[in-house]
């Protein structure tokens, strides 16, 4: 069953949407970089955003937790609904949104001045919240990010002593400590080796049992392995970035509606 929007190639799965972007446009200074993006993210689904570099997928993902506005010159039109409430409505504190919608960045960026444990608890400290049992929280978050066994004996070591892949899993654990409902991941594996990548993909599958995940990726195999639905972004010469096609991952990869999608998923460009 397909729900049609302005773009006939955009199909949405039939489920409650947890997070929903409606008609998002983005400008940087006067430059229009993203046009009319409307996507629905059902509860506990994994959505992959694919497309060549510079198509606006990383920009888009930052509009979902109000990180976009921190970039100087950023502009935005449209709305994003989280549990049917507009996160851009006047009077909404962006901090409350970022606590509910977590984010993992492209480059692993643990806080170098903190220990491993300190990094997991950084979100609590930064948002001035407390938990009853810190050790338990640290263990459960590291476990869910499948890092616990590797670091349980050196929780007080500086975060910089970990390998790149471990650092990225630490960043995931750090986000999980705030118990977000949605986790945004901006090319989380692009700086990692295949082994680390595989482990993070496993983590993503596990996380999706109780949270909604949106992941930007360059890697089409990765999109196929981890996601339920996929959106294909494209910015053609002299045009702003936009969504060419959106639908279930299986459909989009096996029988794309748009020739451009077909070319891209078959590796003919990008």
């Amino acid at each position, binding site marked *: 069953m397909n729900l049609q929007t302005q773009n006939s190639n955009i199909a949405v799965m039939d489920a409650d949407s947890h997070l929903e972007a409606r008609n998002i446009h983005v400008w940087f200074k006067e430059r229009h970089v993203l046009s009319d993006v409307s996507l629905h993210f059902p509860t506990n689904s994994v959505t992959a955003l694919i497309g060549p570099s510079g198509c606006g997928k990383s920009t888009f993902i930052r509009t979902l937790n109000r990180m976009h506005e921190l970039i100087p010159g950023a502009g935005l039109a449209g709305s994003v609904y989280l549990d049917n409430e507009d996160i851009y409505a006047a009077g909404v504190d962006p901090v409350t949104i970022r606590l509910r919608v977590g984010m993992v960045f492209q480059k692993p960026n643990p*806080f170098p*001045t903190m220990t491993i444990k300190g990094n997991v608890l950084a979100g609590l400290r930064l948002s*001035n919240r407390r938990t009853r049992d810190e050790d338990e929280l640290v263990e459960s978050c590291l476990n869910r990010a499948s890092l616990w066994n590797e670091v349980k004996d050196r929780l007080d070591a500086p975060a910089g002593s970990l390998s790149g892949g471990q650092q990225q899993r630490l960043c995931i654990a750090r986000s999980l400590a705030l118990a977000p409902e949605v986790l945004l991941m901006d090319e989380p594996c692009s700086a990692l080796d295949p082994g680390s990548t595989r482990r993070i993909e496993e983590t993503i599958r596990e996380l999706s049992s109780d949270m909604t995940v949106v992941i930007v990726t360059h890697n089409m195999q990765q999109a196929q392995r981890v996601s339920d639905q996929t959106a294909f972004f494209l910015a053609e010469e002299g045009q702003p970035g936009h969504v060419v096609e959106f639908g279930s991952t299986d459909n989009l990869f096996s029988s794309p509606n748009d020739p451009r999608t077909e070319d891209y998923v078959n590796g003919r460009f990008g």
Partner: protein
Amino acid sequence: MNTRQVAKGDRAFFAVSTAAAFFTMSLVFAVLIFLSIRSWKTFSEQGLAFITGSTWDATSTPGTFQILPMLVGTLVVSILGLIIAVPTSVAVAYFIEYMAPPKVAKIATSLIDLLAALPSVVIGLWGLYVLIPHAVTWSKLLSTHLGFIPFFRTDFDNAQGAPFIAGWTVAIMIIPIITSVSREVMGRVDKELVSAASALGGTNFSTMRRVVLPTAKSGILGGILLGLGRALGETVAIFFVLNLVFETNWYRVLEPKGGNVASLIVSKFAEATATEISALMAAGVVLFVLTLIVNMIATSIVQRAERKMAS
């Protein structure tokens, strides 16, 4: 071409640069050695009392030369300067790097760098004619309303020449220095870390406290020590606004009784006898050792911070 010739030319090139390097390195020792030789007479005649006593008498023979009040005064003025300068400098650095619009930040940055090169004699001139009238009023207010706090108690009507005013003057001198260093290290904090903090629900305040300051901490500390070094060795700016009195004043900052090693040297030097010059050289040695320690600590902290940031 003859390879031996090439090597010879290069050898001369390296010899010159090596010689310059050793010359520079030896200067620090030369300063210490020469001043120590010239002041040996004072150290041996006055003994430890040189730094623990409070009398300066050049008229009698052999003369008594003791600088405790000047040493204490130097420390008091420098600490007062830091108390005023450190919070304000860090605040201004934060303002420039994290609050101001880019254009304002750019102008403020060059202005601060320019002011860091402001001649101290100009600050002294300003302190003497512009700051003192205001500072005297402030001191009066402090002593009448907060006189119950030991620091602000005074038995004098007028605070002209008090350590408080000298500390304020020194603060104005070192604010640009500390701000300049703090701004630089705050600006070098990885923007990715600041983004990460925002994404974790950090507010401006918690991001500054948990991420920016811990990362920039050692750099800022280096800047503070640099400012302290300048404050300890500052001469003319203090000379104009501070009364030099040979009576140790540990903490009553509003009483016009101060001391300062560098100012002492300037004020006595022109008419000094040979023995007094030796005593002033000795005072210089003490001051130099004090600032050298502060600067070596500062240098090693900053170099370690730079290495850490680079890795």
